[in-house]
C-alpha cells in the first residue's frame, strides 16, 4: 500500500505537539508528513516568549530539533507560507509550488489584532507575538525613553513588563474601565492597577485612542477621545488576537460569524479531509486562546487519525494563574457570575493587597468560579473544587479567609477524585499519577519524567508534589526523608541541627540526635555537613572514619585496590614546567597517565604507601589536590576566550581560574562541575554543568543546574549580563543554598527538579533575596573560602596523618601480591582477571 500524504500548515506550539503525538501512534507509518511554517524558526514556546528579553535564545525556547524531524521522516519546510488550498484537487499552494495532500491539518494559530486607528501603520507601531516581533521591539527601544502598550489584558501586561525590562518608561492604555476585563471584576482590576502602578508601570483606563501622529518630545503622540494625549517612542498593540483563518475562508470552509474555522468534536472542519487545531479553530462557538486546550485538540486529532472512533474534544477549562509583573492573578471558571442564581463571596484586604472572590451555585454546594489578585495561594484548592465539582464545606467562606480568621486549610490531595486534572498542560490526572506510581515510580522526579506533568507552564508544581507525596505515603513507600536507620532526619534537617547546635563531631551528633553507631550512608553525609559548617581537615582524628575510602585516602580507589592522583589544574591552564613535573613523577612511579574529560591529567596505579611521597613531590612543584575523590568542586572547564580566540568577548580562562580557586574544597551533597565559555559558541560546554557561565558583550550569563552523566540535563538560564561581582554573589548564593538544602548525593539537577517552585523560586531566593538570607549565604561562603587548605599539603606535613598510608601496618615494605600488571600502548596497567599472569 502506498503511503498517504499528510500536510500540516503552521509550525507553532500546537502543530508541533500534534506531530509529537502522532509519531507515537502506529498511524504515523501510514503517512508521508510535510509541515509548512511561515516563520523561519522551528516551533518554539510562545508562552515563555518574554524570556527572550531575559537572554533566552530560540534554542532555549525551541520545542523540538531539526534532528527530531529528520529522525521521524517529517519533511519540515520553514519560511514557506501556504497561500492557497484547492479542496477539489486536494492540493495546497506555496510560492515554491503545489503539493498534494490526502489529509490536511490547519494549525495556523492567530494574529494580533491591531485596532483601526489612524496612524497605526507607523514603523514604531509594533505587535507582540513572534520572536521577530521581539527583535523589532528591541531595535525600536534602543536609545529611547518611553513605550506604550495598547491593551490591558493578560498579554498587554506581559508586553508592558517586557518594555520595562528594556529600560523604558512603560504605560498601558486600556479602553475598558479596568485591567484584564475578561478575567477580573472591578475590585480585582482596581487592585491590580494599584499594584502595577506601584511597580512603575502607568495605567490609563477608559482611554480610546483616536489617532497616532508625529510627537514633539518623543517619536509619536497618541490623541485620545477625551482630548488628552500621551507622547511615546513606540507602541505595542496587544488588543486581542484573531484566528489566522484566511486560508480556510478563501477555500470556503465553514467559518464562525466572528472568524475561526468551525470544527467538530473530532477537530475536523466542514471538509472531512481538512482538520483544524489550536487558536485558529472554533469549537462550539469558542476560540481558545491558551495552549492547553490546543494541546488537547492535538491529542484528539492524533487519536482520530489513528482510527480511534471514541476520541473527542469536549472543551477545555480556561482558568488562568499568572504572575504579572510579579503580581499574582488567578481567574477560575465563571468568574463573572453569569450562571443564573450564582452568588458571590468576597474577601478584600486592602491593607495586605489581597482580593479574593468566590462564585458559588444557588444551592451553595458547588464552586462555579473565582478571582484572585495579590495572592494565588488559594488557587490550586479552588480550582480543584471548581473542576471536579467537589461539594463545598458548610461555610464556604472559610476557603478564602486567612487561616487566622478561621480559614480552612488547603484541600488535601486525598480529597481529589481520580479524574482530577493535576497538570492541564500535559493532561495528567491524579489517576495517571497513581498509575505510574503503581508501576514503580518512587519519587517526584520519576513521576515528572514518566508523565511530563509540571514540565509545561510549571503552574501545577506544588499540587503535583502534594499528590505524589500523599500517594507514595499511602502505598507505604517511605516518603520518610530519614537519611538512614541511625537518624530520623533528612540531610537538610541534619544540616540545621549541626549548624544551630554548633556540633563538631559525628559522635556528638549521633549521641544527641540519633541512635546506634552510624553507617556508610550517614557517616559521609555528616562528614560533608561538618566540612561545610566548620571546614576542619578531613583527616582530623574525629573525621577519618566518616569518609568513604576515596576521601580517607584523598584519592580514588581503582578496581585493583590502587589509587589515582588528580592534581588541580585550575581552568585547564598549565605551564610547560608543571607538565614536565607531572611527566617526571609519573615516570618515576610508573603511573599510567591520561588526560581526563575535565581538562586535567589523571595518574593511575599508585599504591597507598606511594601516595604521600608522590604528593610531596607534586606539592613542591606547586600543585594542589584536585578533589577528584570528594563530593566537592571538580573542575571549572574553560575555553581559550578573548585572550586568543577571535570570537571571545571576555577572558573566560581568567574567570574559570578565579572560580576554581574560589570554590575548590567546598564540600557539597554531591560533586560540582562548572565551566566558563568566552562567547555563545560555548566551546566549554557550560550549559551541561552545575554552574555554567557564558560571556556576553556586557558581562556574563549564568546557567545553573545542568548535568552530563547518566541523565543529562540542560542548565537553566538564571541571570544575564552580570558584572564579575554580581556573578560571584549569585554563584555564592546558589551553591550555599544547594549545599544547605539538597539531599545526600543529589546533584544540582535533581535538586532543582525536586525544588518546590523550581527555577522561579530559586531566582527569588537568590536574586530577589525573598528569604532574606542572601547576605548570610555569602558570608558563609566567604568563611569557607578563607579557611581553605590543601588537604594533601596538610597531610604530608603531619607524621600522624601519614601513618594512615601504610598498606600493611606491620610490614611497611610488603607489596600487595594481588596487584598484578601488564603493559599496553607503552604504559603499565592492571592485569585483568581473565588474562594469564
Amino acid at each position, binding site marked *: 500500500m502506498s503511503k498517504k500524504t499528510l500536510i500540516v500548515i503552521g509550525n507553532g506550539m500546537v502543530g508541533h505537539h500534534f506531530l509529537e503525538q502522532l509519531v507515537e501512534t502506529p498511524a504515523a507509518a501510514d503517512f508521508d508528513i510535510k509541515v509548512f511554517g511561515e516563520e523561519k524558526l522551528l516551533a518554539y514556546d510562545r508562552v515563555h516568549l518574554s524570556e527572550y528579553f531575559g537572554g533566552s535564545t530560540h534554542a532555549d525556547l525551541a520545542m523540538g530539533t531539526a534532528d527530531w524531524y529528520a529522525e521521524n521522516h517529517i519533511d519540515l519546510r520553514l519560511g514557506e507560507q501556504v497561500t492557497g488550498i484547492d479542496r477539489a484537487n486536494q492540493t495546497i499552494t506555496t510560492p515554491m509550488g503545489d503539493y498534494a495532500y490526502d489529509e490536511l491539518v490547519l494549525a495556523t494559530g492567530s494574529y494580533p489584532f491591531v485596532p483601526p486607528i489612524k496612524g497605526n501603520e507607523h514603523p514604531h507601531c509594533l505587535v507582540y507575538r513572534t520572536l521577530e516581533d521581539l527583535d523589532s521591539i528591541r531595535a525600536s527601544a534602543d536609545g529611547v525613553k518611553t513605550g506604550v502598550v495598547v491593551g490591558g489584558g493578560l498579554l498587554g501586561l506581559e508586553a508592558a513588563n517586557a518594555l520595562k525590562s528594556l529600560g523604558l518608561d512603560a504605560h498601558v492604555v486600556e479602553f475598558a474601565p479596568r485591567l484584564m476585563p475578561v478575567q477580573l471584576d472591578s475590585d480585582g482590576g482596581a487592585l491590580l492597577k494599584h499594584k502595577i502602578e506601584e511597580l512603575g508601570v502607568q495605567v490609563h483606563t477608559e482611554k480610546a485612542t483616536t489617532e497616532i501622529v508625529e510627537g514633539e518630545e518623543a517619536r509619536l503622540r497618541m490623541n485620545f477621545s477625551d482630548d488628552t494625549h500621551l507622547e511615546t517612542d513606540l507602541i505595542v498593540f496587544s488588543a486581542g488576537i484573531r484566528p489566522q483563518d484566511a486560508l480556510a475562508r478563501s477555500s470556503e470552509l465553514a467559518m464562525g460569524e466572528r472568524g475561526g474555522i468551525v470544527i467538530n468534536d473530532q477537530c475536523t472542519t466542514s471538509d472531512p479531509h481538512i482538520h483544524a487545531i489550536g487558536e485558529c479553530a472554533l469549537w462550539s462557538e469558542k476560540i481558545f486562546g491558551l495552549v492547553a486546550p490546543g494541546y488537547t485538540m492535538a491529542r484528539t486529532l492524533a487519536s482520530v487519525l489513528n482510527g480511534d472512533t471514541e476520541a473527542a474534544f469536549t472543551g477545555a477549562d480556561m482558568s488562568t494563574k499568572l504572575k504579572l509583573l510579579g503580581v499574582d492573578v488567578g481567574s477560575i471558571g465563571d468568574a463573572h457570575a453569569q450562571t443564573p442564581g450564582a452568588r458571590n463571596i468576597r474577601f478584600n484586604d486592602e491593607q495586605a493587597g489581597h482580593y479574593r472572590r468566590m462564585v458559588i451555585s444557588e444551592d451553595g454546594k458547588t464552586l462555579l468560579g473565582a478571582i484572585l489578585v495579590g495572592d494565588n495561594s488559594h488557587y490550586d484548592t479552588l480550582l480543584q473544587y471548581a473542576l471536579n465539582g467537589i461539594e463545598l464545606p458548610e461555610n464556604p467562606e472559610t476557603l478564602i479567609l486567612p487561616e487566622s480568621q478561621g480559614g480552612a486549610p488547603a484541600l488535601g490531595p486525598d480529597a481529589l477524585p481520580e479524574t482530577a486534572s493535576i497538570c492541564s498542560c500535559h493532561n495528567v490526572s491524579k489517576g495517571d499519577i497513581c498509575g505510574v506510581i503503581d508501576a514503580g515510580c518512587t519519587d517526584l522526579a520519576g513521576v515528572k519524567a514518566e508523565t511530563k506533568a509540571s514540565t509545561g507552564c510549571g503552574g501545577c508544581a506544588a499540587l503535583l508534589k502534594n499528590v505524589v507525596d500523599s500517594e507514595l505515603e499511602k502505598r507505604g513507600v517511605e516518603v520518610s526523608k530519614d537519611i538512614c536507620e541511625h537518624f530520623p532526619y533528612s540531610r537538610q534537617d541534619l544540616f540545621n541541627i549541626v549548624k544551630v547546635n554548633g556540633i563538631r563531631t559525628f559522635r556528638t551528633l549521633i549521641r544527641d540526635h540519633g541512635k*546506634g*553507631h552510624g553507617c556508610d550512608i550517614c557517616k559521609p553525609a555528616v562528614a560533608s555537613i561538618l566540612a561545610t559548617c566548620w571546614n576542619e581537615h578531613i583527616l582530623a582524628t574525629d573525621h577519618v*572514619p566518616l569518609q568513604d575510602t576515596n576521601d580517607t585516602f584523598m584519592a580514588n580507589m581503582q578496581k585493583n*585496590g590502587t589509587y589515582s592522583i588528580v592534581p588541580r589544574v585550575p581552568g585547564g591552564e598549565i605551564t610547560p614546567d608543571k607538565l614536565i613535573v607531572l611527566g617526571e613523577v609519573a615516570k618515576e612511579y610508573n603511573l599510567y597517565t591520561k588526560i581526563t574529560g575535565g581538562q586535567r591529567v589523571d595518574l593511575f596505579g599508585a599504591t597507598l604507601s606511594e601516595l604521600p611521597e608522590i604528593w610531596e613531590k607534586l606539592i613542591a612543584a606547586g600543585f594542589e589536590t584536585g578533589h577528584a575523590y570528594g563530593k566537592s568542586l571538580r573542575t571549572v572547564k574553560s575555553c581559550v576566550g578573548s585572550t586568543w580566540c577571535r570570537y571571545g568577548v571576555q577572558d573566560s580562562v581568567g574567570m574559570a581560574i578565579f572560580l576554581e580557586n574560589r570554590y575548590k574544597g567546598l564540600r557539597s551533597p554531591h560533586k560540582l562541575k562548572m565551566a566558563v565559555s568566552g562567547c555563545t559558541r560555548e566551546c566549554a560546554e557550560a550549559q551541561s554543568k552545575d554552574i555554567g557561565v557564558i560571556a556576553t558583550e556586557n558581562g556574563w550569563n549564568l546557567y545553573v543546574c545542568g548535568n552530563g552523566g547518566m541523565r543529562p540535563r540542560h542548565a537553566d538560564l538564571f541571570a544575564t549580563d552580570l558584572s564579575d561581582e554580581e556573578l560571584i554573589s549569585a554563584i555564592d548564593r546558589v551553591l550555599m543554598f544547594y549545599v544547605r538544602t539538597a539531599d545526600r548525593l543529589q546533584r544540582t539537577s535533581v535538586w532543582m527538579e525536586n525544588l518546590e517552585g523550581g527555577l522561579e523560586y530559586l531566582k527569588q531566593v537568590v536574586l530577589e533575596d525573598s528569604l532574606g538570607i542572601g547576605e548570610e549565604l555569602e558570608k558563609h561562603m566567604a568563611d569557607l573560602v578563607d579557611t581553605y587548605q590543601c588537604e594533601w599539603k596538610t597531610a604530608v606535613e603531619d607524621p600522624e596523618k601519614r601513618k*594512615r598510608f601504610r598498606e600493611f601496618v606491620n610490614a611497611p615494605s610488603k607489596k600487595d601480591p594481588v596487584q598484578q600488571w601488564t603493559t599496553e600502548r607503552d604504559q603499565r596497567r592492571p592485569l585483568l582477571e581473565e588474562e594469564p599472569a
Partner: protein
Amino acid sequence: MKARTSWDVVCTVDDLVPESGVAVWTEDGPVAVFYLPHRLPALFAVSHTDPFTGKNVLARGITGDLKGQPVVASPLYKQHFNLQTGQCLEDEEVAVKTYPVLLDGNNVRVEIPATNKESAVA
C-alpha cells in the same frame, strides 16, 4: 585431634584507627583489624580480601552498625559484612573469614589457625 593455633602479635594499639580499620600481614595472608572503641568487644579481625573482587581492601571500608550488627562496607562495591560473623548482608552465600582478636597490653594479637600456618609455610 584438636587443631593447633597461635596468637600472633600483628600490631600495637597505636597503629589502630578508632572507628576504622587497618590492614596487617599475617601468615594467613592479609587481615583487616577494626577498632570500634564505643562498643564491646571493641576489636574485630576479618580477612582483608573483598570476596567479590579478590582485592585487598576491606580495612579501608566504612564501619558502622546495621540492625544492631557491627559491619564494614566494602570500599569497592559497598556490600556490608558482619564483623563478628563475616556474613555478607546482601548475599547469604558469601562470607569473609573472621579471626579471634585480643588486646594483650599494648599488643594486638590475632589467632591464626595452625593448619593455615603450616600450609602457608609449606
